[in-house]
């Protein structure tokens, strides 16, 4: 590949431009309609951005929240909402503007990856180009760049952080300050980054300890800067609210593990050695390892992808099957060659998976996105090694060199077209239920007829209808705070039962309450027989999902 670059002047820049353009296209094309609808987390981020853009307060009225957005009681890191203020101002509150930040930073991630890999492996020119191209067409990164996922922006900040760190220790120490800022920014963006960023920073610092110590001035000021910037969330992170959320999802709160460990001890006669081998810490360690390994499952990585259809089209893995041989070769040769900063790649990947393995739902493409682009770097390394080998091949391989290269390129093109065909043709139709398709249409319907009714009842069977109401009606936040009936349960979850004439509740009444005119919106299965259906709302695959009716 090097040779090609030498032959045509400026081709490297042209190549890079094409790749970035392709990355942008794959991330922005049909962004508003694919994924086919917004999920409630996206709606919440969008609406909070809308609200912040109006009076600097979040939906519930906290002024300039730096530590968290309460949202549904899941205490979202606030960065994404802040980044979305400007797109919402420009494009209005809609799917496109809500997702804009993710797609935008996703595209920039592809560009930054180019510079990252250049700093990581300065002696291998081709590697940066190959990695960038692989990331640009990566199913993993495309899927996560096409919805308002905070993780995708956090990944951008982490990559920038690592890149600037390398710049600092290899070129200009002043970059260290910027690097720290970027790492801190990631912690303000996504929960997993709060573990990944510090661990990564510690490992990088250990790896470059000599360089850092020689730059005492910058080291010291970076530490001070980092500490100051982290302070606002530090208080939140040690609060009971933060630990409540963690307890809910972590694997160690499972009582069955204790029971199992005790039963095993008694089976082994409660002997000394039995107490050691059946110790619950060992059971926990095994459990953790299991969840960790889940994220490295080849079926997840290369075949089916994340089981959650929001993160994967379900028929292409997080990476292409094409990647498999290069990924394997890449790992082996990365270790074999031991080029300058090679160790950062495996350590980064390992750290990126640590936080996700504490949770029950593994593998989890979103929570381990912080390990990107290490997977792509490894694949690229394999490709690069392969190109080096085939360049110098002798005998039979020299003769079939061209056909082999053409074949490999063809398989890659077919593989990625297969993914894109699935994503743009079938995905919206097949997975519209996963994206809560139907809310938008039902709320548009309400808008058109609400003047005829005194009250509107909305069943919350799909979850959190209130945020959709706010989102699609671009509801005035001040009015919302004034009119809404907001309650918080003992788990810290927020419930909005009522906004003015809109009611949201679990089971809707099946008989008329009074002489008021009431419109009901309910899931298709729970509509009472006595209902007079006004309108049915369909999923993209033509299945009915909900209906508006009166009694």
């Amino acid at each position, binding site marked *: 590949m090097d040779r090609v670059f030498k032959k045509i002047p400026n081709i490297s820049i042209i190549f890079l431009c094409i790749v970035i353009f392709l990355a942008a296209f794959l991330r922005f094309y049909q962004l508003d309609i694919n994924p086919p609808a917004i999920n409630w987390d996206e709606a919440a981020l969008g609406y909070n951005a809308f609200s912040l853009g109006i009076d600097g307060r979040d939906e519930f009225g906290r002024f300039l929240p730096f530590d968290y957005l309460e949202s549904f009681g899941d205490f979202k890191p606030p960065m994404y909402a802040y980044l979305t203020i400007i797109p919402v101002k420009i494009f209005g509150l809609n799917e496109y503007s809500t997702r804009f930040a993710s797609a935008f930073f996703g595209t920039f991630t592809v560009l930054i990856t180019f510079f990252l890999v250049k700093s990581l492996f300065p002696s291998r020119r081709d590697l940066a180009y190959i990695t960038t191209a692989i990331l640009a067409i990566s199913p993993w990164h495309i899927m996560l760049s096409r919805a308002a996922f905070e993780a995708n922006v956090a990944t951008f900040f982490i990559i920038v952080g690592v890149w600037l760190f390398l710049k600092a220790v290899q070129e200009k120490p002043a970059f260290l300050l910027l690097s720290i800022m970027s790492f801190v920014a990631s912690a303000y963006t996504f929960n997993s980054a709060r573990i990944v960023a510090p661990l990564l920073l510690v490992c990088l610092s250990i790896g470059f300890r000599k360089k850092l110590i020689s730059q005492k001035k910058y080291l010291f000021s970076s530490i001070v800067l980092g500490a100051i910037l982290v302070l606002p969330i530090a208080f939140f992170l040690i609060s009971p609210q933060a630990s409540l959320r963690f307890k809910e999802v972590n694997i160690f709160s499972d009582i069955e593990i204790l029971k199992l460990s005790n039963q095993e001890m008694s089976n082994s006669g409660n002997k000394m050695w039995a107490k050691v081998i*059946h110790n619950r810490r060992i059971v926990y360690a095994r459990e953790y390892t*299991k969840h960790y*390994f889940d994220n490295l499952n080849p079926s997840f990585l290369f075949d*089916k992808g994340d089981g959650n259809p929001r993160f994967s089209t379900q028929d292409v893995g997080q990476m292409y099957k094409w990647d498999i041989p290069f990924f394997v070769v890449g790992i082996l040769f990365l*270790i074999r060659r031991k080029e300058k900063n090679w160790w950062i790649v495996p350590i980064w990947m390992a750290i990126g998976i640590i936080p996700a393995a504490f949770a029950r739902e593994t593998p989890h493409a979103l929570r381990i996105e912080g390990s990107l682009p290490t997977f792509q770097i490894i694949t690229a390394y394999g490709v690069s090694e392969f190109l080096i080998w085939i360049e110098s091949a002798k005998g039979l391989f020299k003769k079939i060199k061209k056909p082999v290269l053409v074949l490999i390129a063809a398989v890659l093109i077919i593989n990625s077209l*297969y993914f894109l*065909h699935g994503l743009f043709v079938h995905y919206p139709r097949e997975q519209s239920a996963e994206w809560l398709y139907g809310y938008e249409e039902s709320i548009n319907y309400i808008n058109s007829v609400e003047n005829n009714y005194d009250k509107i009842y909305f069943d919350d069977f799909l979850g959190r209808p209130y945020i959709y109401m706010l989102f699609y009606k671009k509801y005035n936040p001040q009015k919302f705070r004034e009119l809404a009936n907001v309650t918080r349960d003992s788990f810290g979850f927020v419930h909005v039962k009522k906004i003015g004439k809109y009611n949201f509740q679990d089971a809707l009444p099946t008989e008329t309450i009074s002489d008021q005119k009431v419109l009901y919106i309910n899931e298709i299965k729970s509509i009472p027989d006595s209902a007079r259906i006004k309108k049915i709302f369909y999923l993209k695959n033509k299945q009915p999902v909900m209906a508006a009716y009166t009694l």
Partner: protein
Amino acid sequence: MNNKVTKYLLIGIILIASFLRLSLLGDVPISPDWDEVALGYDAYSIMQTGRDEFGNFLPVVLRSFDDYKPALYAYLAIPSVKIFGLNAFATRLPSAIFGILTVLATYFLVKELFKRRDLALLSSFMLAISPWHIQFSRIAFETNVGLAFNIFVALFFIKGLKRPWLLSLSTVCAALSIYVYQSEKVFTPLLMLVLSVIYFKDLLKASRTHLIAALAIGIIAIIPMVVYVTTNSGALLRAQATLAFSDKTTFLKENITRLEYDRETGNSLGKIFDNRRILYIKTGISGYISHFDLNWLFLTGDINRHHAPGMGLLYIWELPVILFGIYSLLFYRKREIYEKKSVILIFAWFLIAPIPAAFTSGVPHAVRTINFLPTYQIFSAFGLLSLITYLKKYKLIIGSIKVRDLMYVAIIAIMMFNSLYYLDKYFIQQNYFYAYDWQYGYEKAIPEVTNIKDQYKRIVVTDKQPLDKSYMFFLYYLKYSPVEFQKIGKLSSGGFGKDHMFDKYQFRLINWDEDKNTRDILFVGVPSEFPKNIKSKKTIYYPDGSPAILIVDPEDN
């Protein structure tokens, strides 16, 4: 390492292997499962009458539960059934013996390939203590014997390059392998192919007569199987049924909707991509790579009969060592000691092992891919030895203690701990937690039934999970006369999913609402088939105290 030490160490390893495979063989796992009893009873039937349960004379393939088991295992079990009677120990013994032979053969194979005694000893030791290998050496699963034959094939082949008459032995073993287990019909030819390609030049040097003799013997040996497969349409049914796409309607359902949508929208790209042939390719790759799941290998295994509770197929400490072994095998080849071909053979073996399972459903599958052994053990052994070489250079001393020695101690401690953990899980926890999976209960229930059998006109035994194929368990534990049963078996239309009858026994699902009003009939069933507070003549319990089998007389209730 001199000859004598090697010999003693090898004997030691074989003793360990034998101990781990033979002790409590009839009792752990707690009960033979349906396939084991079927093989045992067919051995018993062939031993007494020369015919299987369906009356086929000296069968090449056992129809059994319409899964058409290759028959060799049943023949191998005849001597032990003759000596020890028809019981779990006798049924499982051939597998255990072949397991021990595999450990021995692995030593010679590795020695032949890598010219290092330490590596050969360590590899065979790793196999001796391997959870994967122990699991299938202690049950009457044909796959374990198939593995043994495959290792013999490679061993005799490599040795045969110097002493060509051994090549015939190699082809005979290859042929036998095909008579043992379904997967070998795919794996063994691939192995032969790999061997022939890698050692092509060496083969050409061998004498023509020996080569032709080996080929001829091999071909003659597989003729009966070829004849059977081509003349019996049923023989391939089982293989087809296990294919991932055997159930076309569910397999292709989503695909068809997609294709229709592509047609509607005139998407020509879609017509290519949503073609079912693409789906077949995807399924194959998907099945293949599913066998490289670290959880499956090191922590969980697949279904419960294929691993000890809480264990995978390999020890977790092996993970770093295996990776290190693979890495060192690839990159630190000492030219003067072993040939490049040996490395290529091990990796080729490793890569073809998952192929037989790739297109089947229920992947990853520890039984269909047991031919991964002994490559993992060789990687492990190689990794450990490379690690020791690496540590030898490590001369750091803290105080008066060499750090290197501390590391040795730590490695050995971790290995011992993990082995203890495994042995506890296998020998103590398995019977407690997995009794259900092993279809436990018949051995206790059947004598109870026979005790009171005379009071009843008929005895109805359920066929419901986990008591499926109950008729075979009754034949097995009653040692029912094969001559008698063949009279029925001949007429029987098939083994799978059909109700069976012999003597006073009838095997079918119990429908309590109807059956509760019957008289003079005894019912043997699982708790879920009866009302909650039913009075039973006798209840058989699992080791964890939950009821397994109820023997119920409706008149008591």
